[in-house]
């Protein structure tokens, strides 16, 4: 490599940095926030706030994996850069024909494989089993049905009797009966319909997910909960909120033109406020049904 080429490379790097700088500065311009109610929690560049009982295990796994990845990459990069500098073509330097006997690579590959096995069997599988296969006892949990549609989340509470009323697809009416509740079913009478997800704090929640139309994904970022909502299937998810506040429900699967606006709010509150809210929303619901008759 001759001198003019080195100067050329350095100049190119310099110009590059000059071009990045403004792009980073421009990157700091804040776009206006669109959300209505104030959302609780500190959101920033790292992992978002975490307010569920089991979410910490997911976070821990993510953090461990990233330390592992960084360590691997750094070790690898140091060797890489060393090779580039030490073995550059220059006068009097010749490449070696015989391959080096590098046992290190074999050991490091085995090490990587072993650590991956540990991550998978030791950490990931137990979390998955707990969050996807071991539901909390029904009696202790708050039960909610979540019905997704383009581009709205519907929440269906069983009401005082603890039983969900029958629903049928042919009874669905966007305005008067978004869930398709059967008016002749006594269990349906006290059912509560809401477009905001209210949940009591420190109590397990089971959400049964269904979709009316296309595939959605029920994403509670702060709970570390995500589950596709697939039409024709009823899929349960469960979690235990541990901190009161107002959070967001997002759709994480492209579901049509206004997918981005398929957002609902989730309020975690104490038992008393939850009961009060359920009553208030329930009254509105009954009023609607009277009007329907």
């Amino acid at each position, binding site marked *: *490599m001759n001198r003019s080429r080195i100067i050329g*490379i350095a100049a*190119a790097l310099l110009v*590059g940095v000059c071009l*990045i700088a403004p*792009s980073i500065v*421009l*990157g700091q*311009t804040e*776009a206006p926030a*669109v*959300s209505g109610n104030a959302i609780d929690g500190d959101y920033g*560049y*790292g*992992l*978002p706030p975490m307010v569920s009982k089991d979410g910490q*295990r997911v976070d821990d*796994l*993510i953090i461990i*994996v990233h330390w592992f*990845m960084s360590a691997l*990459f750094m070790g*690898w990069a140091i060797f*890489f850069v060393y*090779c580039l500098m030490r*073995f*550059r073509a220059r006068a009097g330097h*010749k490449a*070696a*024909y015989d391959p*080096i006997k590098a046992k290190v690579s074999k050991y490091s*590959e085995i090490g990587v*494989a072993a650590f991956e096995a540990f*991550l998978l069997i030791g*950490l*990931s*599988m137990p979390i*998955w*089993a707990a969050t*996807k296969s071991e539901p909390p006892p029904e009696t202790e949990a708050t039960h909610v049905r979540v019905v997704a*549609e383009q581009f709205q989340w519907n929440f269906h509470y069983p009401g005082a009797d603890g039983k969900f009323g029958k629903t049928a697809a042919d009874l669905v*009416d*966007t305005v008067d009966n978004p869930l398709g509740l059967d008016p002749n079913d006594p269990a349906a009478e006290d059912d509560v319909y809401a477009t905001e997800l209210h949940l009591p704090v420190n109590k397990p929640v089971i959400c049964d997910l269904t979709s009316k*139309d*296309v595939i959605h994904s029920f*994403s509670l*970022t702060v709970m*570390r909960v*995500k589950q*596709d909502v697939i039409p*024709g*299937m009823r899929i349960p998810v469960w979690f235990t909120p541990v901190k009161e506040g107002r959070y*967001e429900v997002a759709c*994480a699967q*492209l*579901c*049509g033109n206004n*997918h*981005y606006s398929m*957002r609902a709010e989730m309020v975690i509150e104490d038992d008393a406020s939850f009961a009060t809210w359920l009553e208030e929303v329930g009254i509105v619901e009954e009023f609607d049904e009277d009007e329907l008759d």
Partner: protein
Amino acid sequence: MSGDHHHEPSFIRKYVFSVDHKVIGVQYGITALSFLFLGFCLMMLMRWQLAYPGEKMPYIGNIFGEAAMPGGVMLPEFYNSLGAMHGTIMIFLGVVPLLVGAFGNYVMPLQIGAPDMAFPKLNMMSYWVYFVGGVVMITSFFVPGGAANSGWTSYPPLSDIATAGQTWWLFGMVCLITSSLLGSVNFIVTIIQLRVEGLTMFRLPFFVWAQLITSFLLLLAFPPLEAAGVLQLMDRLAGTSFFLPEGLVVSGVLQTQISGGGSPLLWQHLFWFLAHPEVYVLILPALGIVAEVIANNTRKPLWGYRAMIYSTIFLGFMSFIVWAHHMFMTGMGTKISAFFATTTMIISIPSVVILTALVISLYQGAIRFTVPMLFALAFLPMFAIGGLTGLPLGLPAADIHLHDTYYVIGHFHYVVAPGTIFAIFAGIYFWYPKVTGRMLNSTLGYIHFFFSFIFINIVFMPMFWQGMAGVSRRLYNQTVYAHGDAVQSLTVMSSWGAWMLGLAQIPFIINFFISRFAGKKVSNNPWHATTLEWLAPSPPPHGNFETVPVVYRGPYEYSVPGASEDFNPQHVTTEACSSVS
């Protein structure tokens, strides 16, 4: 049959409907580069909406018409079209045709010493079927409702009820799949049957091996997607319910015209059964190019050549049984997720082996920092980042938080954009003198490389942080969410990076066209390489070689002790290598 291969064919037979693998390779190359550029432009448009949601696009906002961008502001449906078509065009019309159609077609027969592909007419047909598929895809932008807007994955039921563009997309895909199938048959037969004397399987350049495994992946993985495409066409055109369950209520209307009884997950299984091997279709030929360039520019044999080949074969097999790791969030039980997570972890091992072999190949080399070598070197850390970030996504529990976020986008773009596309650039700079007989200008090449390297990282690195913050992909406007709004500045940075990256391609485009006529003329073997393509004249004539070569040694015999030069070409006898001094 006719022995008249000396007579000069007409212009149309020579340049348009040519059966010469080199002309077809160049046709593939030019077409696919154009599509690559088009896909890039679609992305640059999207990045405006992402960075400045709901704001009027300056200068060019008005040319898209009221149906797409009324008043210069992008509509969500147009945004979704751009997203779906960016993915489709980049993968099926850009990268795969470049890696396989262009490099594979041009270089592979030369590297095995063949006069042409085994089925020249089939080869021509592959190109034209691909071309028709491309035209269908482009045309779909102009049908009512715009191009397909259900994502490149086209998940039903959304894609079943989508606008007419989706039907066009499906027809386009059927063409592209057919083209790839014809091509893969041709490649495998050529590599197995047409190698010259002495060129055993373990004397093949790694690039040829990569093409061989890739062809098997295309051959066996694409038909299920073709089947899935036919089923979706039936759903859309004949009213069947392959992917539709009973009782769908779309926009408040019960869908009584469909019978129901199908499953949306069926599509996902068929789709990902293709699309995971497809990932290796995107990366293996790129690794092949990088291996060629690295061996040539370190002036020493590749380290662990056989281990690389065995790893590639193993990758090929494994890639057929990892597909459901794209579907962890579809309500999968512990056992099935454990199976697919395990196969996913296993498949990472051969990738690590290949990457390690390439890096150790640098050790004790004499590294020439030529333009193709810079791209090939940059490929290594970029591919490493892309590969490593696949790890948390492959662990089902970590995937709960990261699934369908920008983290995924960052991950696979690191593999495909600074990974594969850098390898493509390395290949273009490396083989351009073979194709044209002239070098690309290296000053413009260095400028192109450094700016591309910097800006492509500015585009994709922020995505990991966005994904960590929990921002979903495919959002028209992420600021509606508190966690999205908090990292909007990263989006803006990424967008500026993308536009700058666009500017950084200008030196390349200028270089590419000017050097065709004004580049420095070169000999047959300007890089002092060992493989057979450098024996043929630059550019090679019809039929490739003046005399049929015979191969005496492995592909990367550089710096052999006692040899007169630091490279021993495959076709030169051992006596000739050592005697001349």
